Structure formats: structure tokens, C-alpha cells
């Protein structure tokens, strides 16, 4: 009898292992555990034919076998559920190393981003933003900035004229005058915007580009304030280790005038063939100076009481330095291959 039980147990275990699906499960249940025809149930029917002293222990053995059968059935059921779930998942995620699905998105123009970066530095220093028109009068663009007719400085900025007294602004400096006339000292403004010069497009010139102008007017503003402000700005924009150099220069609307160079952020002056600094180690980024008394007066401000400094920088050039761009015409061609590089 014992042998019979033993061989049945082995059979149950063997067949439980072979359960592959729901149908197998049902078959297994039917075959072994069904109350009427199951092989285990059939064993109970044998009990009355046994010796009375054997009956109780045999019964316990059958019960034990039944429990084993039920346990194996449950395990098989769990196993099949798990296999089914994971086959569904692996269909959805066949290989976690496959690439992600690209999101649709566009891009923001690098000039806009760079201007924003510059504006933010000054906003945090307490400067307000001013804007002026693209189509300017000759007065605001030149006369008020101490650039009278036939002044050689006009030649440096070839101008698009609409009429003799109306033009496309050649710099953001007219906003200095507009800001002074609108506000009272202390004045701290920056004026970002488009400017126009009649230059044939080439790798370093475009007839339109972006500038950011700055103006500070208050009592006691001096040359050291100009230096301090532009040094902080340059380091904020190009990195803490940037060295800043001030050189004498000339702008009719500032006196003294300066040009500001930064140490080359690309090669640090170590590459004699550096595309950005040409091996000199320095790159000019800003024009600046103390506001000329005539310009203060044109803005309705008394130069006996107030003084100020002003500066201007090219946004296009700033990004060119940062990105090592080869040709500034790319900015305004808007080729997708260009724009998508700077999302």
C-alpha cells in the first residue's frame, strides 16, 4: 500500500511540474483532486477494505497527499499567473535598453537666450529694462549722442536711411537719451534690442544684429564704478576665472572711453591659432565710458550735479565666443540644423 502512495506522490509531483497553462491546471485538478473521480479521492474508497488498525494511518497519509496535491496546484496556478503577467510586460517592454521615444519640441534662438543671460545679470544688480524703437530719428541716434553731421564717427557705422532725419538705429545708445528723458536719477537701465548697419553679410558681419546697452546716472558715479560693474558682469557671463582688461578708446558719447577685453575663455591665450582670440589671449567684448556731459545735457540731466557711465555689447558676438560659432550669418538664416543645436 505504502508503495502505491509513494508512486502516486511522485506522479503528482511530476505532473504538477508539467503544468503549462489553464487547461493543464484543470486537467491536473480533475485527475488528482476531483472529489468523485480524482485519483486521491479514489484512495479513500479503499479504506474500508483495509485492516482496521491500518485505516487511521492510511487515511492520514491520503490526507497528507491531498494537501500536497492542493499545494502543488496552488503553486502551479501562481506560477502560470506570473508567467502570463511577465509575458504581457515583456511584450510591452521587450528590451529596456531600447531608445526612448523622442518628444516633439522646438527651440529658442541662441541670440534670445544670450540676451536673456546678459539681461538677468544686470536685473539682479538692480537695473531696469528699457526698450526703444528700431526706426529712430537722426537726432536720437546721432545728434543727441554728440555725433554731429559730417562727424567721422558716422562713417564707423554705416547707416540705413529712410529719410534724411529717419533711420534704422545703428546702436542701442539712443535708448540712453530716451531713458534719461523719461526717468530721474538715480538711473540704472539696460536696453536690449536689434540694431542695423549697412554691412554686406560675411562671416563676421550682418546688416542686423543684437546689442545690449547699459546706462547708470547718479551723483558721484566715477570711472572705478564703470570698471567694477563691467568686471563683475564679465565674470558672471564668462566665468569667475575670466580676466578683464580696460583699454582706452573713443566714442563720441563717452569721455573717457574704454574698450573691454576678456581673457580668451576658449584657449586662455595658449593656442596661437585660436579661432576666437587669434592667439592674442584677449577678446574685445564691450565698449564703454563715462557719459559725455553733452549727452547728459541732451538727456535733460545737469552734468554739474550728476555723472554716469554707459556701455554696450554685441549679443551675437558674445554667443559667438561662447559657442565658437564660425559664421555669424548662420544666426539669421534659421536653418533647422543650426537651430536644433541650441535647444
Amino acid at each position, binding site marked *: 500500500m505504502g508503495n502505491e502512495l509513494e508512486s502516486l506522490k511522485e506522479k503528482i509531483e511530476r505532473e504538477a511540474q508539467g503544468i503549462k497553462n489553464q487547461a493543464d491546471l484543470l486537467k491536473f485538478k480533475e485527475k488528482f483532486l476531483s472529489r468523485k473521480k480524482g485519483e486521491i479521492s479514489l484512495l479513500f474508497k479503499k479504506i474500508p477494505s483495509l485492516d482496521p488498525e491500518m485505516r487511521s494511518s492510511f487515511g492520514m497519509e491520503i490526507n497528507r497527499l491531498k494537501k500536497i496535491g492542493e499545494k502543488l496546484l496552488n503553486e502551479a496556478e501562481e506560477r502560470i499567473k506570473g508567467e502570463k503577467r511577465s509575458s504581457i510586460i515583456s511584450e510591452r517592454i521587450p528590451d529596456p535598453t531600447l531608445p526612448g521615444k523622442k518628444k516633439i519640441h522646438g*527651440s529658442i534662438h541662441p541670440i534670445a537666450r544670450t540676451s536673456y543671460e546678459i539681461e538677468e545679470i544686470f536685473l539682479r544688480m538692480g537695473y531696469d529694462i528699457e526698450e526703444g524703437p528700431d*526706426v529712430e530719428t537722426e537726432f536720437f541716434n546721432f545728434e543727441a549722442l554728440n555725433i554731429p553731421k559730417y562727424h567721422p564717427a558716422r562713417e564707423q557705422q554705416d547707416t540705413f*536711411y529712410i529719410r534724411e532725419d529717419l533711420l*534704422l538705429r545703428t546702436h542701442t545708445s539712443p535708448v540712453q537719451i530716451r531713458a534719461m528723458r523719461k526717468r530721474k536719477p538715480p538711473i540704472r537701465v539696460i536696453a536690449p534690442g*536689434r540694431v542695423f548697419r549697412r554691412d554686406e553679410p560675411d562671416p563676421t558681419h550682418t546688416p542686423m544684429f543684437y546689442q545690449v546697452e547699459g546706462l547708470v546716472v547718479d551723483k558721484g558715479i566715477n570711472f572705478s564704478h564703470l570698471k567694477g560693474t563691467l568686471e563683475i558682469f564679465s565674470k558672471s557671463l564668462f566665468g569667475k576665472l575670466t580676466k578683464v582688461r580696460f583699454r582706452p578708446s573713443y566714442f563720441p558719447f563717452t569721455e573717457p572711453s574704454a574698450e573691454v577685453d576678456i581673457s580668451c575663455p576658449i584657449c586662455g591665450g595658449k593656442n596661437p591659432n585660436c579661432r576666437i582670440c587669434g592667439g592674442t589671449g584677449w577678446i574685445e567684448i564691450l565698449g564703454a565710458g563715462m557719459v559725455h556731459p553733452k549727452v547728459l545735457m541732451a538727456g535733460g540731466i545737469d552734468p554739474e550735479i550728476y*555723472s554716469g557711465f554707459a556701455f554696450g555689447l554685441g549679443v551675437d558676438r558674445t554667443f559667438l565666443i561662447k559657442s565658437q560659432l564660425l559664421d555669424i550669418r548662420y544666426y539669421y538664416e534659421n536653418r533647422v540644423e543650426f537651430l536644433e543645436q541650441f535647444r
Partner: protein
Amino acid sequence: MKVSINWLKEYVDFDLGEKPLEELFSEMGFPVEEIIEFGDDQVFDLEITPNRPDCLSHYGIAREMAAFLDLNLKEPEFPLKEENKDAEFDVKIEDQELCPKYVARILEDVEVKDSPEWLKNKLKKMGVQSKNSVVDFSNYILFAFGHPTHVFDMDKLQGGLRIRKGKGEKILCLDEELREVTQDDLIIADLRAPVAIAGIIGGEESSVTFSTRKVLIESAYFNPQSIRKTSKRLGISTEASYRFERGADPEVPERIADVLASLISKYSGAKVLRGRIMKGELKEKREISTSREFIEKSLGANLEQEFFKNKLSKIGCKVEKEGKILRIKPPSWRRDLEIPEDIVEEIARLKGYGVFPSILPSIAQPQGLTTPIRDFRWSLRNLLSSLWYMEAMTYVFVSDEKDKFSGGEGNPLRLMNPLNKKEPLLRRSLILTLLDSVSLNLRMGNKGAALFELGKVYWEENGESREEEKLALIETGILLDKGWSREEPLLASFYSLKGTIEWLYSYFGVSLKFREGLHPLFEDGYALNFGNGWMGLVKRELLDIYRIDEEVFAAEIPIKALLNGKVASFRDFLKFPSVKRDVSLLFSLSTKYSEIERKISSLGIPILHSFFLVDLYRGKGIAHNKKSLTFSFVFRTEEKTLKSEEVEKALEDIVRTLEREFGAIRRRND
């Protein structure tokens, strides 16, 4: 300004290598543009700012270096032996304002020869071709001392010289161009005709050649503005005009005439007649009153007492102290020194900008205010770039042909001097310049592009110029291929663009209503107007100008139309379930969705909460002049759960109305 280092050393002793010299020039305010090697010499091309004409010569640069480095300036000697015969010629200045001073010297028995090699060599470094031993020295003087002179073949001058305005005469110039001189131009004429355009270029006829025997040297001072005006009008710029228009030294013509006479006499064996013919007078009395205190306050640093006087006298200023006041007389060649601030700059420059402290101004009321429109632009940028649009920036120039399509306000603004003659107008629509970028992208092999621009349009109204900032959107072609990332390709389309506009307006809380309209940019029947905005399918005729074959969809909206949107007000959550029913109906192809929409809304069914289009179907099973529209209707009420009969009745009303009004037929098999 080209500067030969060997030549410079004739006036000042220095021993500096290439790098330190480059640094020095840069610190002086004259950055080096280029260094050219010439055997044992180097030529530095310096950028001289327009305020420093006194540095447009070797002597001028040497003078500046002497001041910077505390060196001695060497004065070259030019001994002059005059004949025992007076120089006489009838010279008259007829316009004293334009020619304040005119000096002439006369030389006889001139033997014009080839120039000596050293001179030819010097001129070559300056990029000037050698002519002969007289003309070359006139040029030599210019590069050595910065003052332009002119030499005439005196035998070709008839009767005398008149410095006067032109009278519409023609003059054949040294560059073999025939030019007309007008009332606006100052000229030098003999008693018969013009012989030179004053301060700019000489006449061919009276030029000094190898057969010249008698030479008249002209050394004058001309009004800078007049020279510049004529130079601009005639479109010629010469080494002479470049210097005169920036302002020559008014006190130097006498001495320069002597130096040139000395050189011609030495190298061409000429006899110098006694005396100068002098006309006009120009004595300037410039004096600047300032103080050490003012200068130090302007620079934000204290300086040593001696520094002021030493350095200022080194650059040629005469300085007198009267109590705290410094009375400074600038030298005649420093025409840029006029006001105390100019002295501040000189002091800063001579000291070196690097030595001054760097401090931040203290700010009384820090604000950091931006403008509403600036912040709004960034919302737009972020929003559109997180869809598929790429921000573009385009030039503003368009042709007359393109402008006709702009549909812009007023009249276009026209440039007097456009870069490209074919594009003289400022855009009245951003779409016109964005199309250039679309066209380029397609030509470069892109299958599509979606761009936006934030920029201005310009126009003229009642003689006033106007400008307004707009947002333009443009899309064409395949924007994203199908593949691993997408099951369907992303295509530019009319409805995609329309959806973008709907999203923009709803994002900013601005109400939006489309109307069909006519606009020159867009195909008739495919243009929609919304407030001041327009969108549509760009006209084929216009696309042909840009050589674009694809269909292009575009929109343009004034930025201010999107500002000041409303914050949405809260709607309470649903207390009772809503019921959704889909219905398909057949309509005639020509029936407009907007009319159907309007009709349904006009029924005013209280329980109809909303409805929207689910599908438009044409093709199999439907007559070719019909379309099937499937709508979803959402019914709900705040008061109770709707009964099925109520919903059916409302739906029945809608369907009946559409059947009656549009001849629609309900499709049952959906």
C-alpha cells in the same frame, strides 16, 4: 594707420619686442590690427580712433610713445636755404571759413628724378607707389608728420590761385576720373579752371611730372566738415582727405611747407624762393579749466601731485596752477581736448586704465524691473518651443513685389540706401521674411520646417513711422517622420496651426473667435481672421517668388492681442454624471462646420453642456459630394442625474434641426 618700426625709431628710441609693443599700443588706445614683416622691419597696422588725427603719422605716434614711456622725442632737422628772390604769386582765399589758412612756397630749377631707394622703400611699406622725387616727398611728409600737402607744376597754373567753391566745372583728377565740382565743394583753381579739389585730390593737368621745372607747394588747413562732405559726395577718400576731415593741426602748415621745400631742394636740386606766401590766419585760444579734485573724483582714485603736470606737459599741454584750478592749454594738434572730461581721459590713459580700482556703485533703491512685454516674450518662447516650433530671427528687408502681399497697415517704409536694391522696404509682415528661411531649409534638403519669430513690422502713416511687435508662426512639410518615436508622421497642416493658435489663446486666457476673411498673404477661402490676427494657407503666387513648391501655413498675431488675458474662474466639480452621445451625420460637402456649430448653439438646449467634432469621413460608402461628420455631445445638468429620455429628446432636437437646416442625414450604422 601703418607704422614702420624702423621709421618710428627715427623719432624716439625704444627697444621693445613685438608682444610688449603690441601691449603698449593697445594701452595707448591704438589696438594692433595686423603686423606685416618687411625684411629687417615690421609694419604695425594700428587702429586709430577718429578723435586722434594727430596720431596718423610716425612722428605723432612717436610723440605719444615718448609721453607714455617718459622718453625724449627727437626733432629731425630740415635746413632751408632760400634764394635771393622773393616768392610771389597771386593767391586769394575766397572762402575764409572753409579755408582758414593757406601757405605756399615756390621752388625753381627743379630737376624731377626718380626717388632715392630709401624713400621708395618707405613709401612701399605705406602701400604707396613711387612717382617721382617731388611727389614722393609730399607723400613722405604726410606719413612722417601727418600733414597733407600738395605740389603743383607751377608753369601749368594760369595767373594765380583762388581758393573758392566750385561752380559746376569739371576737373580731371590724378586718378584719371573726371569729376564735377559744385557749390558744396571747396576747390583750388587758377584764374581759368579748377586745379585741385581742396584737401582731397589734385588735378591731373597741373601735376608734377618729370618735365616739371617750377613747383608750388601747398600746405593749408581746411575745414574738416567741408572736406568730409565733399569726400562723401564724390565718393573718394584719400590719405589727405582722411586726415583733413578728422582735423589737421592748424598751426603746422608754415613749418611743413618749409620742411617739404627743404627736402625737394635737397633731393631735386631745386632753388627755394624767399619767403612763404601766407594767406589767412588761424589762432585758436583753447583753454580748459579743471582741478585735481574733479579729475580724481571722476576716476575714483587719488593720484600723485606731480603726475598731472608732468604727464600733461609731456603730451604738449601748457599747465598753469591758480589755487585749486588747473588752467590747461592743449597743443594745437590735440583738437580732441576741449572739456575737463577730456583731461580726465588723458590722465586715465597715461596712467593706464588697469591701475584704477574696480568697485560697484552703491545703489539707493535697487529695482530690477523688467517690462511686461519682455517677460511675455519668454512665455511665448517657452510655450512654442515646447511644441515643435523653432524660434527664428530674420532680416527685415523685403522687395516691392513681396510687400504687395503683406496686407500691412499704411505705406511701407522705404530705405534710401538699401543693401540690396531689390529689397528696399521694411517688412510689414514677418511672414515675408520667415518665408526666406523656409525656402532655404527646403532647398537644403529638409522635408519640412516649423518656425516662429517675435519681431517688429514697420510702416508709415501720415508721415510718421510706426512699428509694432508681432508673433508669426509658419509651418510646412513633414516635421517629424514616423518611426520608433512616432506611429504617425507629424505633418504641417492648416488644422495643426489652427490648433496651435487655439492653444496659445486658451493658455493666455484670451478669447478667440475665427472668422473667414480675405487677406493678400493667403489663398482666398483659406484665410481666417481672429481679432487683429490672421492665419491661412500662403498664396501660391507668393510662394513662387520664394521658389517654394510645398504648401505653407502661416499666422501672424500682434503681441499685444495676447497680453492681458483673463485668469479662468473656477467651475465646481460635477455632482451628477454627464452623458456623452456620438452621432454621425451626412452633410453636403459645401456645408461649413462653423454654420453647423452656430446652429446647434443657437438651439439653446439647457442640458447640452458641450459638443465637439470627433471625425470627418469621406470616401468609401459615401457619395463624392457628401461628407460624414461625427459629433460628440455632452449632456449634463447641475441639478440631477439626467434621464435617458431627456437626453434622447435633446439629441433628437439637434438631429432634426440639422436635417431641416442642412439636409443632413443621420447615419445609423455607427
